[in-house]
Each structure stands twice: as structure tokens, then as C-alpha cells.
């Protein structure tokens, strides 16, 4: 590996449930990636800006407020509006199965629900990162 994978772990929206985000952030770090954690209560625009400023390869969004159908596509649209189409976007949280196809159509690569082993998330991320590492 020539350089480390850079990941933005982002918390869009108003919910403060950060257990999953923090656990996944640590798992990424322990797997040798560079992790930037957005902190809480971020708007889609703030997350897009952070992804640009930090020049990340992956945006991993954690959301448990049920607002994923509104906020996740807004992040993807924001990235595209900035001409960014090679960032891997992942979602974790409480997401009903019937919402998954819509998120994927918006450009999300994978949705990880409760009970997903950390290694599954880490391996998926390594195997699907789109930029040359």
C-alpha cells in the first residue's frame, strides 16, 4: 500500500447517537486508515466541505434518526456538485430494508445495519475504495 486510505466518518442531521460512528472510526484507525470524525449535528453541506478539505477517499455516514432518505442523497448531490464522483460513500445505522434501494440509487455503495462485524466494514471499504491507493 503506497498511502493510507483516508476516511471521513460523518454524522449528518440532529441525532446524537454516536456509538456506532465512534466504534467504526476506531476500527478504521486500527486497520491503518487515516480517520477524520466530523463530530455531531452536521449538515450535508458541512460534510461535503469536510470531505473536500480533508481530501478523503471514503465518506462513511452514520445515521440513526430515520432522516437518511433526506440527508444522505443531499451529501451525494453536494459531492457531485463539487465535481467529486470517485469517493466511496457508505451508510451505517438504523435503516429499514425498503429504504436501501433508494440510497443505492442515489450513489451509496453499501448500507451496514446493526450486527455488522467491524471486519466486514473494514474489508468492504478496502476492496471498494475507488481512488488509487
Amino acid at each position: 500500500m503506497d498511502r493510507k486510505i483516508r476516511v471521513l466518518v460523518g454524522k449528518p442531521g440532529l441525532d446524537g447517537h454516536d456509538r456506532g460512528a465512534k466504534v467504526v472510526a476506531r476500527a478504521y484507525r486500527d486497520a491503518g486508515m487515516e480517520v477524520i470524525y466530523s463530530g455531531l449535528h452536521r449538515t450535508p453541506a458541512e460534510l461535503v466541505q469536510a470531505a473536500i478539505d480533508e481530501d478523503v477517499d471514503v465518506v462513511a455516514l452514520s445515521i440513526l434518526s430515520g432522516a437518511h432518505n433526506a440527508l444522505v442523497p443531499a451529501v451525494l448531490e453536494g459531492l457531485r456538485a463539487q465535481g467529486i464522483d470517485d469517493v466511496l460513500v457508505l451508510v451505517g445505522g438504523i435503516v429499514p430494508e425498503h429504504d436501501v434501494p433508494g440510497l443505492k440509487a442515489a450513489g451509496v455503495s453499501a448500507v451496514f445495519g446493526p450486527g455488522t462485524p467491524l471486519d466486514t466494514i473494514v474489508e468492504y471499504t478496502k476492496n471498494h475504495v475507488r481512488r488509487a491507493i
Partner: protein
Amino acid sequence: MERRERFQTISGLPVRPCYRPEDAAQLEYPRDLGDPGQYPFTRGIHHTMYRGRLWTMRQFSGFGTALETNARFRYLLEQGQTGLSVAFDMPTIMGYDSDHPRAYGEVGVVGVAIDSLADMEILFSGIPLGQVSTSMTINAPASVLLAMYVAAGAKQGVPGDRLSGTVQNDILKEYIAQKSYVFPPAPSMRLITDIMAYCSRHVPRWNTISISGYHIREAGSTAAQELAFTLADGMAYVEAGMAAGLDVDVFAPRLSFFFNAHNDLFEEVAKYRAARRIWARAMKEKYGARDPRSWLLRFHTQTAGCSLTAQQPENNIVRTTVQALAAVLGGTQSLHTNSMDEAWALPSEKAATIALRTQQILAEESGVVNTVDPLGGSYFIEALTNEMEQAAHAYFQAIERMGGVIPAIEKGFFQREIADAAYAYQRRVDSKAYGVVGVNCYEVPEKVEIPLLRIHPETERRQVERLQQVRRERDNAQVEAALGRLESCARGQENVMPAMVEAVCAYATVGEIMDRLRQVFGVYREPALF
């Protein structure tokens, strides 16, 4: 030869093969246990406990608009629920109106959207507020929602001294775990002491804070951390009340607690027993409370949402049953049982009904209500209760060395402790050291097909229209004057609550009131640590 090298509780406390009299040998019955209803209340706060009165069955619910939630409330009361518990949506919790840009996509999603007294009137329409007690899970804007409840009661002809219920109003655990804070700690604590003073005079049966370990545990803490951090928060509120010049015996009897019930049955029972003993001793000996009601740790319990699995969701009914049993064996005063579908969405009506029936089966069929503290005297339970107490005292000392709860929050102490425990737990699950049925053992390929509650897509638009109608129809000069008075109380020393009630009666909105207070108090930002 044993199946494993080590046996431990879900929180990682080592457990020996068998407990014997010497494991609880130092216990002196009158000093450390006492009969139920006797100091230090280890065995329970009431002499007769569930023989006298069952716990309150109080299911947390709320979604969509006030009208939809009112229908769910009436349904739950018809089904035998004995108290109400309101779940608010994220914009209400964070003090934004439904038409605020940050509310986009979140209106009515995790709870009910409340913008003004007009919504509150609908929420409790046809529900006699003089007879039902209501718990409201609201923290940063607790003063606003309490004022709306008082106003809604008045509109029904129910005066404040006949209202009963709880506002969660526990801001310290928001900084520590749940993260729905708005203002910085100092003004937040001032709002809390204003509520304590106001309620002691005007709403005397109201529980002014529900000091909550639930969210600390959900964020990933161990049982001992939940116990220690919650009681440390409780003591910080007592100290704040006394520092504000209130007599401890005036406000302490209205403090209540809220704990998690996780999977490890004995550890949980020990936690509740230790909590009562620690609190009674602290209130009597450390804070000098003389009214025995100040010594009592009364608590609500909710089964552990974080223990529920998305896989094979029907199994969650069984998990919830074990957890609810722990709460009852531990002497809870009220209980919420989670629904099986909550790793996917908010509960459907069917799932919520099964959750309520779980409590009713424990109460009517299991026989566990027939005697008080049935596990008391078990060598294991008494040893574990002592261990919990000692672990809590070690944390109290660590917190004191940091200068108290607020400095410890500002140093990120609690947040780091919880994040460490959460990560260690996840690694134990991933390595199969701790088995989770359907997740790391007994898995089956499945397509989960349970009917899920879906929030009506028109909810946000409807709520915003209603809000704008309220703004058009009210007397805006009256609103402005009331907000001005509220702001001047907030800037000065005067209790904000009377001005708050006046503002909500003029139909000032949650967002307008909170914006005024944001201007006065500023907002809190936490360091983004992981």
C-alpha cells in the same frame, strides 16, 4: 473442566463458579440491607412493593404529528397502559421549529413534532391530565415543554398542583452520552434549578429531573459506569440546587432516576440495589437531607435498545422479557419494554402491543410480584451488589479529582470511558467471546419480513403548514412582548419559568423561545473525539 477459560458478566466483571456465605460475610442486615422500605433501601423503597401497587407501565411513544401520536396514546391507555411517555422528534429535542433548515427530513420521524402549544393541546386531547401521569423525554428545551404541559393542563381546567409527571431535564448525561445538548453547562444548570424552584411551588407532584443512566449504557458503557456516572450526575444536581439556595428537602424528593435493563440479569439487579443504597447514604450522610423521601431512589427502567438485533427480530421479544424481569426483580417504579422491530424502525402498533403484554404477563402470571426483593440474601447478588457499589465509589473519587462532573465532561473523561467500553464490547462480539444469537451464532440466511411503521411522507409539509397557520393567527405583538420578558429574565437572575409559561400561552414556538435563549446563553460544541 469448564467450557470457557473465564466467565464474566456482559460488562466484563469476573464471575466465580459458586458463591458462598463468606462472599457476603461483611454484610450487616440493618446497616447494609434493611427491610424493604427501610434505610438504606437496598431491598426496595416500599414495604409492600408490587403487592401494594404494580409498577407503572409506561411505553415511550411518539411519531408524526400530534394527532397521530394522540391516537397511539389513546390506544395504549385502552390496552391497559397506566402512564404516558412522550417521544419528541429531533427538531423539538434540539429546539428548532419544523420549518428550520436543520429540521429538513427529521420532522415527526423519531418522535412527535411539537412546535407550539397548539400541538400540545392536540397531543393530550381527550386525555385527562389530572388523572394520567406523563413523562416527557426532553432535555435542553425541558423548560419550554414543561411550560406547555402546564398551559395544556390549565386549558383542561387542571391546575399545576394536580399535574403529575416527569421531564427528563438531565442535561449532564446529554454532554456525556446522548448528545442532545444546546446551551453550555453553566446556563443549562441554571435552567434546571429554575425548574426545581418553580415546580416546588407550582407543580409540586412533578418530577423535575429524571437522572438518566439509560443513554449512558446505550452509548456503550458498562453496568458499573452507568451506575457511577448517573449517581455522580445526581449528586451534581443536588449540589447545584443547594448552591442556588434551595433547601435539599424541598427539591430532592422530586428527583427521579432512569436506568437501563440489559441482558445480564443478575448484574442488572445488583446495579439497582446498589443504586438505592448509595443514593440513600449520600443524601442522608453527605447532603444532610432529613426528609426520608429525599433518601429514596425512585427509578424508571427501559429495556436495552442496543441489545436488540436486526437479525431474527422476533427473538427480541425474549431478550426484552429477560431484561424486564431484571427491572422487576430490581424493584423498578415504572417500566418501558422495547418492541421487537426497533433495530429496524419505530415500533408498529402490533410490536408495541406485544411489548406491553410482556409486562402484563410478568405482572399477572409469573409470580415475581408476590414478594419484595426475592433475590436479596443470595450470596451472589449480595456480592455483586457490593462490587457495583465499590466500582461506583472508585469512579466518584476519580470524578472528584477532576474537579467534579462538569470539568470531567470538558476533559472528555466520560466520553472516552464510554467509547472504550463500547469498542471493547464490539470486539468481544466480533471475536465471538460474547455470543449474540442470530448475529455471531445460530445465524440463518433470512429476508426479514416484519411490518414496519412508516412515517407518512406528507408529515413534514403538514406540520410546517400548521406551524405557519399558528404564526398567522396569534397576536404577534403579545408574542414579542413575552419573548422580551423571557429574555430579560434569562439575562438576569429571575426565574425564567413564569415568563416561559406566558410565552407559550401566547403561542410562541419552541424554536423562537430557544433562539432567544441561544442569543443569551450561547451554544455548546463538543470536541470530536473517538
